């Protein structure tokens, strides 16, 4: 199979074109996922662009994004495939007399009566796809097993039809917010990528890229304040998306240098717990 990317640098450049600023780790793992034909498991705090990475990669490669949102109680019929019972029933009733039993029997378990769900759709698709399995830590441990076959061999076994193998190997991304330990079996099949809060320069760059017309000075100040806040011992540190919201708010308010009062008044956009807000406000106003 033809590799999608030439080298790590080209992945990085491509993602940048889609306004996603990858660091070395992210670009390297995406490149490796393509070369080794392995899924990528992305973990990290909420709001650091895990889902966005999959979307950006899809846009970059011009592939269709197929998304499976995981939740508690997800099962085979929602993730893999389901037989279209109503249509099967109609088929049986439509010509009761003409066909022999064996013909009908073979007939109603064919492609025509199969409803594809995201996972099956991803591997049967003719055009290139990126499969995103979002928040995989929300399903139960037992349900994880559903994913194993598709992740390691890119195939789905349907008892009535046989095994369906992928026409092309899709790029697969799994995201997890780390609310529970994923099973060893799942982790073993994936490349692991931990996306953390970006460092100062990258965060500033992200702000500049994502918020149009922002001045360099303001972006710098925002990134520095956010870094300081993240160093505090908080319940929930501000995420990248919250940084961006904050930057947009400051733009709307027409502020170009942040001073203490403005910072304090807009803190609730960065932080979502009252105790955190109080703590940050106290820390920012008292320089030690």
């Amino acid at each position, binding site marked *: 199979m033809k590799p999608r990317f030439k080298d790590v640098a080209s992945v990085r450049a491509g993602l940048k074109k889609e306004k996603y600023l990858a660091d070395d780790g992210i670009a390297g793992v995406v490149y490796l996922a393509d070369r080794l034909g392995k899924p990528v498991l992305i973990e990290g705090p909420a709001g650091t662009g895990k889902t966005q990475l999959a979307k950006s990669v899809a846009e970059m490669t011009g592939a269709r994004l197929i998304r499976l949102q995981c939740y508690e109680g997800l099962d085979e019929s929602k993730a893999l495939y389901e037989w279209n019972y109503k249509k099967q029933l109609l088929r049986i009733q439509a010509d009761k007399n003409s066909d022999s039993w064996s013909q009908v029997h073979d007939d109603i378990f064919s492609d025509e009566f199969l409803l594809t769900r995201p996972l099956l759709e991803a591997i049967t698709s003719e055009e290139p796809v990126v499969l995103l399995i979002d928040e995989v830590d929300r399903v139960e441990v037992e349900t994880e097993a559903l994913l194993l076959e598709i992740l390691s061999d890119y195939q789905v076994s349907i008892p009535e039809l046989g095994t369906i193998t992928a026409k092309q190997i899709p790029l697969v991304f799994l995201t997890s917010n780390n609310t529970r330990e994923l099973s060893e079996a799942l982790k073993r099949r994936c*490349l692991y990528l931990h996306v953390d809060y970006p460092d100062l320069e990258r965060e500033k760059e992200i702000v500049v890229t994502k918020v149009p017309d922002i001045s360099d000075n303001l972006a710098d100040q925002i990134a*520095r304040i956010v870094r300081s806040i993240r160093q505090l011992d908080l319940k929930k540190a501000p995420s990248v998306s919250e940084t961006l919201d904050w930057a947009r708010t400051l733009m709307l308010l027409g502020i170009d240098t942040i001073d203490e009062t403005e910072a304090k008044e807009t803190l609730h956009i960065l932080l979502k717990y009252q105790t955190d807000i109080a703590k940050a406000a106290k820390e920012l106003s008292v320089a030690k």
Partner: protein
Amino acid sequence: MPVLDLMSGFIVELRNAGLPVSLTENLDAMEAVKVIPIEDRDAFKYALGATLVKNNAHWRVFETIFEVYFSLRGPEYEITQDAQPDDFWREMQDQIDQVRGQGEGKGSGGGMDSLTPEEIAAMLMRALMSGDQAMMRALAKQSVQRFAGMEPGRPVGGTYYLYRTLRNLDLDNMLQKLMDANREMSNQKLSALEERLEKDEFQSRIEQFKQEVESEIRRRLVADRGAEAMAKTLRKPLPEDVEFMHASRDEMQSLKKALYPLTRKLAARLARKRRHGRKGPLDFRNTVRHSLSYGGVPADPKFRYPRPAKPELMVVADISGSVAAFARFTLMFVYAIQNQFSKVRSFVFIDGIDEVTKFFKSTEDIGEAINRVNTEADVVWVDGHSDYGHAFEVFFERHGKDINSKTTVLLLGDARNNYHAAQSWVVKEMRKRARHVYWLNPEPKSYWNTGDSIVGEYGAHTDGVYECRNLRQLESFVSTLA
């Protein structure tokens, strides 16, 4: 050395350090190495990381081992000084001249070797001021060479050298000096916010410099002793294996960081356990009532799910010096998952005992509550040496009546009683009234009942004594509790 040999040594070392690297992951790493050239160190590192390390808590350990095995072998890490390009040297020479003052005029020649320690410190300060990366790296090299006093073959760990180097540079006061210099330089007065930001910036630069020094020391040690021996001395336990009683300050920090995700996971798991997997008998009335909407057909059977009461918890913790860290972590842990219990009350003691539940009730911030426990709780009765007997007696006298069949009592401590009276009848009485009484001991099992430890005497009256030396053991105990 061929890459393959290097890789297998590397993976063995990862396993020795406690990382669960499976055979498939090993093979994946080999595949990855084929497509990523070893010359591109960063990409190479991330490629190995993605295939071998599947838990972010293990990343630090991985990084250290990687550095020992791979980063240090390239030609650019030869321990000579003239590896830098010429113009860099010239620039540095200029800086040296500036530091010395123009008067002497004999700055050239000798390079950095001729500098006095004060001059190096001054140069470091300039580099930190301007955030000059190349300069910082060169200074890190130089100061290790000058101050660490490393001798070949000397069996001393890296931390000793680190300490010696940093002490000579007076890094502790560097932050203050930088702030002062910065204040002088900028003409107008900085606002409090700006000052704070500047401080954080300098702090991170100093941190970066420290890391440079550390990796320089490591580099030299590897050159001296070889990678395998070095990896062994550098081996650090994973955060969940760090012993509470012997944790350094850095390890405490990483423990604290590891604690929160762990409790979150545990809470999710316990909540799930509570909801699932409970089958009860058919609820006949409910089923019939619901059958009405199906025309009298009991299509939707209802069951009577058992709803077991959540346990009530009483934590009684020794917070004297030796076991303070353990008590702190256990309290943090318990309060982080407190909604898994119907009620949590906590008591701390040394030789006197005090209830500290109110500190945790008044704030949502567990860290702050713990601080208040340490500073405000009234735990000294006579001399401030652990007296389990007296503490238990007073506890029972005041709160014994609150112990009932729903209560689980957790006793935390090493049971080193300083040869006071044991009063173990109190524990026996507690057990009669409580649902369970458990004892958690942060000492290794082999130390129990040696010296003044009388954990056996108390333990005989409890439902079990558990060794709780690290986060892993603490977690596994708590998950059986709720």
